[in-house]
């Protein structure tokens, strides 16, 4: 049942393109593998798996004291940055703190530029923590509204933020 790539006739076709061919607007279907599709200029914008991001991230840093970073070890669970790099998994919750500055750019990249949690907060942390998260969320949305020149929404969000800030301290 597998369709092979029409160009290399070798790999499985996973990219299916319908071209409209001028002058009659005739439809032409092409079935290509990912590699050939890319060569044909058909780009597949895909979410990068964590290991790819890691690899790129590491390449980027090579030469700048990378060895030192690789040997960085969490005193709580004993995981090294090198281990994290190869598996994509942390050893314990403390790793986020221990590797902080080395993983922040990576986390940013994996989450479309986001660096701060703005969702649910465990109740045990109290009302204040919940408000902090909500504030961060509102501020982000305010920036988005301004970017989109949606000033009505921006004004509403600004008022909401003010109210929370005076209220929550």
């Amino acid at each position, binding site marked *: *049942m597998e369709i092979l790539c029409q160009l290399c006739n070798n790999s499985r076709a996973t990219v299916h393109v319908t071209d409209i061919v001028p002058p009659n607007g005739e439809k032409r279907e092409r079935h290509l593998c990912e590699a050939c599709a890319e060569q044909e200029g058909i780009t597949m914008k895909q979410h990068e798996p964590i290991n790819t991001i890691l690899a790129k991230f590491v390449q980027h840093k090579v030469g700048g004291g990378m060895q030192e970073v690789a040997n960085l070890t969490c005193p709580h669970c004993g995981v090294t940055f090198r281990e994290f790099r190869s598996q994509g998994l942390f050893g314990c919750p403390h790793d986020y703190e221990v590797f902080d500055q080395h993983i922040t750019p990576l986390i940013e990249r994996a*989450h479309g530029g986001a*660096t701060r*949690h703005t969702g649910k907060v465990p109740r*045990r942390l109290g009302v204040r923590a919940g408000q902090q998260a909500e504030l961060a969320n509102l501020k982000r949305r305010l920036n988005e509204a301004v970017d989109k020149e949606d000033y009505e929404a921006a004004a509403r969000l600004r008022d909401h933020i003010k109210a929370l800030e005076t209220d929550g301290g």
Partner: protein
Amino acid sequence: MEVDDLTRRTGEWLRGEGPSSEVVISSRIRLARNLSAHPFLSKADDAERQAVYRLLNKCIAGTDLGDDALLVNMEDTDELDRQLLVERHLISKQHAENRGCRGVVISPDETRALMINEEDHLRIQCLRSGLQLDSLWEEINGIDDLIEKQVEYAFDERFGYLTACPTNVGTGIRVSVMLHLPGLKLSGEIERVFRAARDTRLAVRGLYGEGTDAIGDFFQISNQTTLGRSESEIISEFGSDIIPRIVQYEQTAREVLARERPYQLDDKIWRAYGTLAHARTVGTDETLYMLSHLRLGVQMNRFKLVDLQTVNELFLLAQRAHLQKINGGALDADQRSIARAELLRKRLGAST
């Protein structure tokens, strides 16, 4: 309740009910959570794993999952039963194949499944047929609250819920919707839809999630990023924006097919029926493809020899583990293809 009891039912995600169920098979939300006082699983020894397992088991018993919940200890469960749970979307493939102390607690109606010691200490999953994300969030949020009362989750003000893999950090939420898109597939427009989905940082996967192919025009769409936006923002983007649009595309594609290529459409449906009702040996992939076309025929009211319930049941029963369970024992690949064909002939009403 035992694992064997499951084979006698269809399972929630194939009930074929709920909003937009012509296109949306099921909605699922899962939350990844870890205990602050224990290392993540890659650094947990047997004793740690067991401690987490026991503690979370107790906590789950303290939620409203019901007395009749099914607790499955993966280490005491054979390969066939584990595969059965994968086929019913109650555990991940990874959870079935992993080693060490781990388990799952399943509610009697199979709408809730809580995996212990998968990639994270706890993965809470809620599942419904059709497009029902808002009520799912309310439900899973409530379960999470009940567990959170009893344990201390690993949480950081900046990074949110801390997870073993940084791709899940923040909300730890994964929202997935399973779609049946035979219309877009037949009209050749499906890649365009997926490219648009990927551009908005959504993942498109096959029937059984990560690393599986899209078989029989079933696709799972889920969020990729978990940090930066709140749970309700993620859900509302999905439930009120992206998915309804794809549903609309699919509906339009079906209407166009019916209007412009009715013979080709009916030919697909009837050939599928012909194969399924008369084949003497048939593999899983072919069965799922054919059932997909049959489902399209039933949904579009163009095919009336079979009802939706039967088609949905066959989606499950024709799969590897279910088939062996009904047959009461292990079958090799050839035997399975023969048994599958027999089952299909019997259920689809062909006399010989």
